[in-house]
């Protein structure tokens, strides 16, 4: 957020952008091939048309690029930009299926799930920003890139999320501790063959290899100084960085040596920053901008979606995001929130249908933690329906018949303060007096991380489509520490930690998802959250843009877009 460039303060895995309600960000993982209500693809009438090459595509974001170095750039602006410059071993198709990218085929996986062997594509070159070829890609680059990601000496600082995602690779601990710079678990078996050994089986391993963190870079050029590498990035992706002016724009041009010579797409991509959603919307309407990086502003949503001129240009997706009211489960002594009955009373006092109305119906009411397009979603999970009378009885039973006073924190981006106001009114109806404090997004995250927010209006967007991404960062004891903003409820239950560790290592399948549903049920029994809304993401795309669909993971997938001539 200007927000979309979420600051990185957490120790544990953080979502990209995550947050905040505003959150706007993000995406939806449709696990099913044709999810209901997903995605109009832009230029639907031209579906089937052959992509063409040429033209200049423009996209505008409010927030700036955090970093173009894939080892640390972790937000909704940096990711689409990094994916223009770099490749990963595997990636997602138009949905959430993992497909090979730099790998020639999908890896062979050992029976115990701990060894993955990849064969790399031939003819891949690293190309300098000036268009000259540095050298061909080698298997050793895979090992060096992952070791670099885990290097504690990265300047200005490594991203803790980056380290956390790959901690299961054998030898990762030693690299993280700084005792060696060689990652023992990534073995070079030949010029184009590489093997990963994991310390424990991990059903999410291919998902994390698809994240831009795991981009393959020429380590001798990248070095430890991420600022220098971000200024002159050398990768194997379809575009080269021609220029970047902080606070203004980054310009990308086609890589003439890209390994897939048949790839079509714009000759140039201009990524503008510092453009707020309202301005970006007007520019797309006027035809001077092709894509809005941020979602359609909530207030303009009705007018734009009802306008027949734009009927073919509005693209919608259900987000894999949950917006929720977090309640501090480890509050200071004497706080009413320590009592689970009080938290349940708050959960039953929230009228979610009214909040959906405030955001003009963009989304559906949330009953539990997992959103509908996340594997493990449980439509029957809704333990605390709206019932203010029951809420008042619970408060009385907990010893607060006359309610109490508390504070709710939110960020300042519309519609979050309006939603916080609705929550305040809902709680006032059961006697809980709420003081709403709206803070700029960064300040708000710092308040949460400092464990100073009894109540926080927040959101979580998936990093990758797996239920572990909605449990480990949000409800683990490891994430419940001061300094981390991803677990605003400060929820910590060692029994649930143990269940989550087991489920994470299980092989993919119905049994694993059933375990995650059980974990969700047990967490909800302690009411750390009032899940409120699974939001929809809407955007307006320019009339000449083709091939654009909001991607479940990437949101803005600039690699698939082309321009009608």
């Amino acid at each position: 957020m200007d927000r979309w460039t979420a600051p990185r303060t957490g120790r544990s895995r953080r979502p990209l952008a995550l947050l905040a309600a505003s959150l706007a960000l993000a995406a939806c993982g449709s696990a099913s091939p044709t999810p209901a209500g997903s995605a109009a693809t832009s230029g639907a009438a031209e579906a089937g048309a052959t992509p063409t090459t040429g033209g200049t595509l423009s996209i505008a974001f409010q927030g700036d690029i955090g970093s173009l170095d894939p080892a640390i750039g972790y937000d909704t602006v940096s990711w689409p930009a990094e994916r223009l410059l770099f490749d990963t071993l595997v990636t997602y198709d138009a949905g959430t299926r993992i497909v090979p990218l730099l790998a020639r085929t999908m890896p062979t996986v050992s029976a115990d799930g701990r060894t993955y062997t990849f064969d790399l594509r031939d003819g891949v070159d690293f190309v300098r920003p000036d268009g000259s070829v540095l050298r061909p890609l080698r298997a050793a680059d895979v090992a060096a890139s992952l070791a670099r990601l885990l290097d504690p000496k990265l300047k200005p600082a490594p991203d803790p999320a980056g380290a956390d995602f790959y901690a299961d690779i054998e030898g990762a601990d030693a690299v993280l501790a700084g005792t060696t710079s060689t990652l023992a678990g990534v073995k070079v078996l030949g010029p184009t063959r590489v093997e990963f050994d994991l310390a424990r089986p991990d059903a999410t391993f291919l998902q994390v290899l698809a994240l831009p963190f795991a981009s393959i870079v020429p380590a001798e050029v990248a070095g430890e100084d991420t600022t220098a590498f971000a200024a002159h990035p050398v990768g194997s992706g379809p575009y080269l960085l021609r220029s970047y002016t902080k606070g203004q724009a980054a310009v990308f041009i086609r890589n003439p040596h890209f390994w897939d010579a048949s790839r079509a797409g714009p000759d140039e991509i201009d990524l503008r920053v510092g453009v707020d959603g309202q301005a970006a919307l007007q520019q797309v309407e006027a035809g001077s901008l092709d894509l809005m990086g941020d979602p359609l502003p909530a207030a303009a949503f009705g007018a734009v979606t009802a306008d027949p001129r734009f009927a073919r240009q509005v693209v919608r997706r259900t987000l894999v995001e949950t917006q929720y009211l977090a309640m501090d489960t480890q509050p200071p002594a004497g706080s009413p929130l320590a009592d689970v009955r009080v938290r349940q009373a708050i959960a039953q006092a929230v009228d979610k249908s009214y909040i959906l109305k405030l955001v003009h119906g963009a989304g559906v009411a949330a009953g539990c933690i997992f959103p509908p397009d996340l594997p493990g979603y449980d439509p029957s999970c809704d333990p605390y329906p709206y019932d203010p009378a029951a809420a008042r009885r619970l408060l009385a039973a907990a010893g607060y018949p006359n309610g109490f006073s508390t504070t709710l924190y939110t960020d300042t981006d519309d519609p979050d303060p309006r939603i916080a106001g609705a929550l305040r009114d809902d709680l006032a109806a059961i006697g809980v007096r709420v003081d709403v404090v709206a803070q700029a997004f960064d300040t708000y995250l710092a308040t949460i991380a400092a464990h100073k927010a009894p109540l926080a209006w927040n959101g979580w967007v998936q990093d990758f489509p797996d239920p572990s991404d909605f449990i480990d960062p949000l409800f683990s004891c490891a994430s419940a520490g001061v300094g981390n903003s991803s677990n605003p409820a400060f929820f910590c239950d060692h029994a649930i930690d143990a269940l989550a560790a087991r489920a994470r290592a299980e092989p993919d399948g119905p049994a694993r998802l059933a375990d995650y549903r059980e974990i969700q049920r047990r967490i909800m029994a302690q009411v750390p959250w009032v899940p409120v809304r699974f939001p929809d993401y809407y955007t307006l795309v320019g009339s000449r843009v083709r091939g654009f669909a909001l991607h479940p993971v990437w949101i803005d997938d600039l690699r698939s877009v082309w321009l009608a001539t």
Partner: protein
Amino acid sequence: MPADGRRERPSRWRRVAVAGALGLLGLAAAGPLLAPYDPAHAFRDAGLSAAGYPLGPGGAFLLGTDPAGRDELSRLLAGARPSILVALGGSLLATAIGLIVGAVAGFAGDPLIDLGGRRLRLPVESLLMRTTDVFLGLPPLLLALALTAVLRPSLLLVLLVVGLTLWTTVARVVYGRVHSLRDAPFVEAARALGVGPGRVLWRHVLPHVSAIVLVYLALGMAAAVLLESSLSFLGLGLPPAEVDWGSMIAEATPFALVDPRLVVLPGGALMVTVLTFVLLGDAAAGPVARGRR
């Protein structure tokens, strides 16, 4: 300039200004009582369209509703009080500080005092006026940011920010006036007759400053209203539960293109208020320009 002072400046504008100012004071006092509804009450069903958008003027809500389904007219009326309270209080505070600092610095200068044979120059004027210069260079929003980092947003905090940033102009003007009067013959005459310094300042010097102070008091109100609404617009003003015109504009900004009414109404109220105070300043300036005593 015509010899007849009464024809030089029509008094119609002065009447308009005074009437307007009285009207605003009345609004601040009675506004919340005139409000047809509780300005904080969100009409969840009646106050929003089926799609969740604010209602236009007419029907049960004379000026429509805001994005949360609250009555716009009631909020405008309730918002008058903090805006005008800050205008009056902030400007009075600023003028009082400015008057004291400017008068003391201009009148006392850097006096020589006798400490048992050692003569010492007391830098009263230098200290006060350099402090004024420092405050002149202080951006009000930065000061507000710093203060809100320590204190919770409140009406008092806004008053403080307004008072602490607007006093410097008054101090400069008063200082200049008093400084030039300090050695005027009639002041020296008073001194020679043995009148004490406090009485000289109070009875002989300050009366010559009062008119211009009144002008700045009125103009300060206009500046205070604007500053207060800027602070509220940035979320540094009143706590979110309270209403004032600046925060109404801030809340309506996302809807500015969809429903301009939500920005135009509080913006218009703000404009009329500022205009009234500027006219009041002009009206007070009339006698000053004519040199009336």
